[in-house]
Every structure is written in structure tokens, then in C-alpha cells.
């Protein structure tokens, strides 16, 4: 699927102060029965967010909310940037996790580290995962929670910088290929198919070397 080109924006930060947030927590398994790519937002973090048991097809607007969960804090209601701790997205390869985060409205995720498969899945959906040093993440948590107003960050993907509400500019580092794809909103299957000749040449060579893979 082609993704939309990533545009620079200013967004509010939601601080989720937990390490090792796994994809079962991001979107529990009962919602994986859907055969669509959309509609997962209301069930993002379902078990932490609501006090009852979530089932597919429910109207989530009437469900009892967990007042202690940060997503339900009105201060962060308009957040589009998720700030969290290390190894975010560990566990299952379910792409429903980035689908749910994007469907909810997040555009950027900031953490000291992300799990590999989740990171890849996020990029494929135009969701930008940004890895920052632990110390900078600590500082952002402090800024995000110290004031009554949410912290806002300017994300400039063209120039690879973040500006945290006048608290200074932070440089971001991202794989150049991912950068290219996000900025231009590329369909990477289409991109790969432009190399169809290379693939065919590889297959012809490989069929000779390892005929048992083509039998």
C-alpha cells in the first residue's frame, strides 16, 4: 500500500512511562480477528484504557474508562506524539499495532529503542519512530509532565530536527532509505517491482546453484 508523504507538523506529546510495552498491550488479540486495516484506534491499549473486557464490534464510547491511564487524561487528548521507554513494540509481529496507533491519531513515536519488527511495520505505515538517547528521553518526560499544558514538539523530517517548545533543537537520526520513503510516500512494492529484471536474473542464477528450491 502506498503511504502518504510525511509532512512536518507541530504536535502535543503523550508520555507513556513504561518500558517493554508489547504489541499485545498495544492491541489485544481479540481485535486481530478483523480482516480490515482500519478501525483499530478505539481499541488502542484496550486493557489499560478501559475497565471492562473489550470485544470486537463493541461501541467503545460507552465503556468505563480507567482514569489512571495516561491516554484518558484530558491534558493529552489531542496528542499526536507518543513518548515512551525502551523496547517499545516488542513481541508479536502484528501490524495491527501501528495500525491502531495511527488510527488513534499518533504520527510520531519517541523512545530510547524500538523492537525491530514493530519499527519496520511503523515505517511501512508512515508512522515515524524516533530513537533518542535515554537522557534526552528523560528530559522530554520531565517537560511533558511538569507543566499543566502539554509539551508540544515541532517535527521537521526534511531537516531531521525536533524543536521541543523552545527548549532547544534535537537532531534526529533515521535510516536514509526510510527517510526517503517517508518523505516521498513511496509504495515500496512498486519500488521493488522496478527491479523485476534483477529478480528474474537472480532466479535464473539461483535455479542453477540450488535447483531443489525450484523443483
Amino acid at each position: 500500500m502506498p503511504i502518504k508523504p510525511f509532512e512536518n507538523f507541530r504536535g502535543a506529546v503523550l508520555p507513556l512511562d513504561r518500558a517493554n510495552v508489547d504489541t499485545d498491550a498495544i492491541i489485544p488479540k481479540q481485535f486481530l480477528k478483523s480482516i480490515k486495516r482500519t478501525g483499530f484506534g478505539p481499541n488502542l491499549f484496550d486493557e489499560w484504557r478501559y475497565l471492562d473486557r473489550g470485544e470486537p464490534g463493541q461501541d467503545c464510547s460507552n465503556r468505563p474508562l480507567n482514569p489512571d491511564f495516561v491516554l484518558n487524561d484530558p491534558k493529552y487528548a489531542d496528542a499526536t506524539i507518543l513518548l515512551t521507554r525502551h523496547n517499545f513494540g516488542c513481541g508479536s509481529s502484528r501490524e495491527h499495532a501501528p495500525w491502531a496507533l495511527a488510527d488513534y491519531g499518533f504520527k510520531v513515536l519517541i523512545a530510547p529503542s524500538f523492537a525491530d519488527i514493530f519499527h519496520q511495520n511503523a515505517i511501512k505505515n508512515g508512522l515515524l519512530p524516533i530513537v533518542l538517547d535515554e537522557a534526552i528521553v528523560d528530559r522530554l518526560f520531565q517537560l511533558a509532565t511538569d507543566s499543566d499544558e502539554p509539551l508540544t514538539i515541532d517535527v521537521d523530517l526534511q531537516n531531521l530536527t525536533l524543536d521541543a517548545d523552545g527548549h532547544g533543537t534535537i537532531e534526529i537520526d533515521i535510516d536514509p532509505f526510510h527517510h526517503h520513503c517517508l518523505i516521498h510516500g513511496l509504495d515500496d512494492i512498486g519500488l521493488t517491482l522496478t527491479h523485476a529484471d534483477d529478480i528474474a536474473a537472480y532466479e535464473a542464477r539461483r535455479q542453477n546453484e540450488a535447483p531443489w528450491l525450484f523443483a
Partner: protein
Amino acid sequence: MPTPRTLYDKIWDDHVVRTDEHGTSLLYIDRQLVHEVTSPQAFEGLRLAGRKPRRPETHLAVPDHNVPTTDRHLGITDPISRIQVEALEANCREFGIQLFDMADKRQGIVHVIGPEEGFTLPGITMVCGDSHTSTHGAFGALAFGVGTSEVEHVLATQCLLQRKSKSMLVSVDGELGRGVTAKDIVLAIIGEIGTAGGTGHVIEYGGDAIRALSMEGRMTVCNMSIEAGARAGLIGIDEKTIDYVRGRPMAPQGELFEQAAEHWRSLNSDPGAEYDRVVHIDAASIRPQVTWGTSPEMVLPVDGSVPDPAEIADPVKAGSYRHALAYMGLTPGTPLAEIPLDKVFIGSCTNGRIEDLRAAAEVARGRKVADSIKLAMVVPGSGLVKEQAEAEGLDRIFTEAGFEWREPGCSMCLAMNADRLEPGERCASTSNRNFEGRQGQGGRTHLVSPAMAAAAAIHGRFVDVREEGA
């Protein structure tokens, strides 16, 4: 002299179609396993773009996550699950992909049937929309989980865009003690390096204790590479690997097999090959493991006690420990062996193979599940595992002891079907993840080996299987 290469280097080099100016490679994928949960949107993507699978014969599909483990003849009663399984069947028909449907005796968990059918082969690249695809690394195959977009990418192009990972060698040196299994090895490794320890790496497992494992044991170790943060785990190819593959229905036959085997024998890391990181673990020091928390790295030997977050210096880690203990309903200092259990689950792609069922049956033979256990269930990894177990009489050992003997599938590893924990219930499970809610909302999971799970069912609490005299 050529530079010594690791096994990962060799498989990688064999599969690179091209590399661009950013250092991203187009990697050729030899085989893909497909299941009902992560594929519908990929097939829909193909349809919307008017694309076809490049090599339909290189994919094998099976429903496993949603299938019921009882009353199979009634079909799937949950309508949403049924739609997903029917979508898989319709997509396979439309795109010409081989499917083992629910009525096929070869149906089972993707990661059990791949090796069983000889669909998994040494030296190949293999993916599946499932993180436990790392299992197939036991065959010296580069196998890793992908998301749905990449499932579609492989269907359409037979390739993936990849950047080469770093390499890590985990060497398990020496001999395992009695009653200590592959599951204990991998849990001990995760306890040592952490759930992010392998992030960005492909792990190769080596050392005497790994070489000594059966293929089933090697699959258990590679299976949980993802719980150590690594997308893939690998084990070098030896005669055990080749003997396991020989004669399997989808493996090459005759002359072609011998030609393949000759190539496979070259697929081991060269002496002097360099890794980005090397970890040594002393096999003799590994004791039967039990997880106490909500991450697989929260693991201790069975004779340990629940840790105290107050003794943890790192505030983020201490916070994780406090969350975990609150969720698990545990108090610091409680000996693991005193934790009472409600349910026991033996199965999954980690421990649902014949050797696992034999180990559990050995402990259960002639004994009874404790009265305090509400449900102890054994779910074979595939129809063929079930058939083999029944031929050996293992089903009777289990049922006479009070275990339920079920139909194959993922079952209570992730509780997408009807098999799940109720809030607050505590389970000894041979699966791979003890995350919050994994086995059912509010359910509490302790990961253990099959023998430890069977012993826990008999006693109603954890016991050291080495003292069982089995």
C-alpha cells in the same frame, strides 16, 4: 584466503538480489508460511493493486490462531473467527496457494508444520507474518517474522527490502544437567541478555549443549529468539539437521536431496568468523526456569524467590517490576515453589512437538492432576504430532492423569480462540509470552518447560522437576 564468514553471512550473501546506494538490500525470500490472522489485508492489497503472487508454489497456508481445540466437526462457532478462516480459504483459492484446511490431518501451528512437511529447508530464507518464525532457524535457515505489509511484499515480489543485521553468538558450553531442557536454556539466555538484548541482531546459537539438542529442542531455542529481541536465531547445519529433513513430503527427494545435502554441509560458520557480540553461558549452571513477571526476561530458577523492586537501582526497571508484581499478584520474597496454580497449558509453537509431549507424559504417567487445578490441557502442535502421540499412547497417559487432550492449534498461547484464562487465574504454560493479558485479560502466565508444566499440574504448584525422580 577468503575472509571467514558466519552462517548468517553465507545465507545473506546467497540471497542478495541487489543493494542500493543507501545500503538497503533486496533480499530474495525462498519460502513463506501464511496464516489467517496476518494475511487478509495482504491479499486485499494484492487485489486492490491488481497484483498476483510471483511464485505461488513457494507459500504454504494453514489456519492455526483461531481454530477451536474441541469439537472440530462443529466448525468455528465464533462468527468473527470463522470469517477470518474462511477469508484465508478464499484467498488461497483465488491466488493459487496450497492450504491445509481445518479438516486436513496435516493442519497445525505454522511453525510446527513447516519443518514437519519438509517445507522448511536448511540454508533458505523464510518469512511468515508471525514473530515466532525464528523457530525455523534451527535448520540453519534465515527465518524471521514480518508484518502484513511485508507478507504482501513477498507475495508480490518474492523479495524484501532489508538492511543486514548485526551478529551475535550465544554459546552454551558444556553439558546440561538432568531434567534441564531446551526451554530452560532459552529462558536462561533471555534472563541473561534481556528482552532487548538481541535487538538489531541475528543470534547464532552454538556450543556443546546446543549441538547435543534434538531438532525439536533446537526449534524451541530458536523459537524464543524474538523474546530476546532478535528477529532471527540460527543453528549451524549438521547430520541431525539433514537426517530430520530427509524423506519429508515437501523436501527434495533422491539425487536432488543428496545434491542439496552436500551444499547444506557447507553452511556453518567458518573458524575465525567474527561476531559483533559473543555471549557464553555455562550449561551446567542452568536450572529449571520459571518466569515470575510479565516479560520473559523476568525469569528465575525454580528454587528462587520473587524479587524485591526496592532492591533495583534503575528506576525504570524498578517501575516495571512493581507493575509486574501488582499484575501477577505476587509479594517479594515468596518462593516460586509456593505459588499455587489454577490452570496448566502444554502446547504452542515453542513446546507443542512430539518430544515435548513425551517429556510431559513421562512426568504425568500413573499420576493425577491436583484437585486444585481447574484445567490442565495438552494441545498438540499439529495433527501429525497428535497422531504420533496417540500411536505412542501418550494421550491415554494424559487423560488418565486428568489432562484434557485437545485438537491442534495455537490455543491458549495467545487465546484467540475459546481457550483462555479468566481474570486473576494463574497458569503454568509451555508457551513463549507472559505479557499482561496474553492468555486472557487479567490472566497470569508463568512460562516453563513441558516437564515442569506437567509436574506443576500434578502438585498444583511449581516443583523442581529434577526432584521428581522421573
